[in-house]
């Protein structure tokens, strides 16, 4: 277990990066607290896996340093970093038995056989693979194989951190829930530092204390699930978190009022925006209420998804989404009001704070 520091890490896969766009991972400065459960959330190709592989030492970063508990490990090999990592697709040693698969990481480190046996039995019990222990791993189904991969990550008790690279992609939904709770329980029990890469927001939000959102090779926001929901720092976070994502509308700012199309919306703060910046107003579908008062909208479609309805509409000639209660009424001439507290203003995609 360790505190992990990423100090000005950058990475490019090409040999000689010339411009910022050549970097798969733009500058990252971040500290992962000892015993924290983090989720790395972002779309495919945003650099999540690159960042993870830099932590585990499978990739050497082009620039920057990595520190475990203050010790520089940048040039230490994976074997010496004492990291466990679970990959997206199951990796099993298919000529070995399930038991030997789980014992492999321990035996390679010359752990005494009695200790190996104790740890492996514990993991076998946790994953519910009891009947399989003595059988070759080859005959297992995909999700059983992935359980073994997970098990090999969890079997070592002394690791600095456990990294998960979308480990539950191949597992069916019901089992996903079970395994995720087991990982969470283990985290509580042993206090490993855990980094969990995913592109599934539900998975990220339920797993982690802190969610790190990545976009286009950089970390755009680190926060609790609530912070990401209420105050997305970047319009991307707004889009990406929430279902449907935040409505982002081009706007003009004049004092404490924002103009969207022909409508003027009062704000509860005065955003300080630089001249010439591209200004947008962000509001989540949950914070728009529909009724007979307010600004006119034209409804294009209503999707009833069971718990609530999603209203797709055009507002100031822009598509917006609104969430309405399951039994909420939609008037014939609908109008909308925005919850003032939930409005975020963005300049060039980055949020302009109330304090600024």
């Amino acid at each position, binding site marked *: 277990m360790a505190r992990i520091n990423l100090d000005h890490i950058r990475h490019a896969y090409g040999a000689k990066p010339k411009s910022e766009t050549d970097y798969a991972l733009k500058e990252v400065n971040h500290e992962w607290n000892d015993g924290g459960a983090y989720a790395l959330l972002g779309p495919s190709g945003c650099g999540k896996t690159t960042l993870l592989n830099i932590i585990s*030492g499978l990739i050497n970063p082009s620039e920057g340093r990595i520190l475990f508990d203050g010790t520089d490990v940048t040039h230490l090999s994976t074997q010496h970093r004492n990291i466990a990592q679970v990959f997206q697709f199951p990796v099993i040693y298919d000529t070995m038995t399930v038991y030997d698969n789980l014992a492999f*990481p321990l035996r390679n480190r010359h752990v005494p056989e009695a200790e190996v046996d104790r740890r492996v039995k514990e993991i076998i019990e946790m994953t519910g693979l009891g009947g399989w222990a003595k059988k070759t791993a080859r005959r297992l189904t995909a999700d059983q194989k992935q359980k073994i991969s997970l098990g090999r990550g969890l079997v070592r008790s002394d690791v600095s951190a456990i990294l998960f690279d979308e480990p539950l992609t191949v597992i069916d939904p019901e089992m996903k829930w079970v395994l995720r709770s087991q990982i969470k329980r283990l985290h509580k029990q042993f206090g490993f530092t855990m980094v969990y890469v995913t592109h599934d927001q539900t998975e990220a939000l339920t797993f982690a204390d802190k969610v790190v959102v990545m976009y286009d090779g950089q970390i755009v926001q680190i926060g609790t699930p609530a912070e990401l929901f209420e105050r997305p720092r970047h319009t991307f976070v707004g889009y990406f978190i929430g279902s449907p994502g935040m409505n982002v509308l081009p706007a003009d700012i004049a004092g404490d009022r924002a103009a969207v199309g022909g409508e003027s919306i009062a704000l509860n703060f005065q955003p300080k925006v630089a001249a010439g910046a591209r200004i947008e107003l962000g509001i989540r579908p949950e914070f728009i209420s529909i009724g007979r008062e307010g600004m006119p909208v034209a409804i294009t479609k209503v999707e009833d998804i069971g718990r609530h309805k999603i209203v797709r509409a055009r507002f100031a000639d822009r598509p917006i989404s609104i969430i309405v209660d399951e039994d909420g009424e939609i008037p014939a001439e609908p109008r909308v009001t925005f919850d003032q507290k939930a409005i975020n203003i963005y300049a060039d995609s980055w949020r302009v704070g109330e304090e600024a």
Partner: protein
Amino acid sequence: MEKTWNNKAWFMVLPVLVLVAFSAVIPLMTVVNYSVQDTFGNNEFFWAGTDWFQDVLESNRFWDALIRNLIFSAIILAIEIPLGIVIALNMPKKGIGVPICLVLMALPLLIPWNVVGTIWQVFGRVDIGLLGRTLASLGIHYNYVQNPLDAWVTLIVMDVWHWTSLVVLLCYAGLVSIPDAYYQAAKIDGASRWSVFRYIQLPKMKRVLLIAFLLRFMDSFMIYTEPFVVTGGGPGNSTTFLSIDLVKMAIGQFDLGPAAALSIIYFLIILLLSWIFYTVMTTSDAQG
């Protein structure tokens, strides 16, 4: 949907049947025909029963050649399979080196058998060959025309040169199909280089190795052209393999009966051994 029942399908397979009949069944049956009869020309045949088979099986000539064949195949497999694996493991996985290595590896495979034989025949000659002259000037007495051991070494080196690439290419195909995640997981698990080979690479190469093993066994057991060109079966009978003996018998001496019997025995031996190897290897695969 209504199904039409007729025998038109048989017409569709007819061309293949004809082709197989002319290329395999008819020649094979001709051989069977010769093996059980005696002929003195003029298309007159006399029933000989199993006499030719008995003759062949009782002759030292047959057993000596068979043992030479088995020793040759064993040596070839013992060298080419491990060597092929080692080369495949050390080939580059990406970059410009890949096409270069692949072309270099494929080159010997593209050369016709008799040309390979001629190349080595000239290469090893003591009077004009590069290898022969070099060895002679180094004071090493090497002459594949006179010394049986030298003849064997020449044939083995030649076969290794000619066919190891096949094993390499097959193994390489097995190796590149291993996803990166396996190597990464092995690093995370702290596996040694040997463990990576033993538990990741070897299991993934198993199937292609089986094919390589069978192909190399069958080919080396049937070897004819190269020893015929290089040594002609000599010195003495030291490199007279079954195939060379067979040709001598059939075309040199025109002993069609014994030659036909030998052909069938030869064919059955290859079939039997290949079947044994295949069964042993696939059942160990299923159990392992």
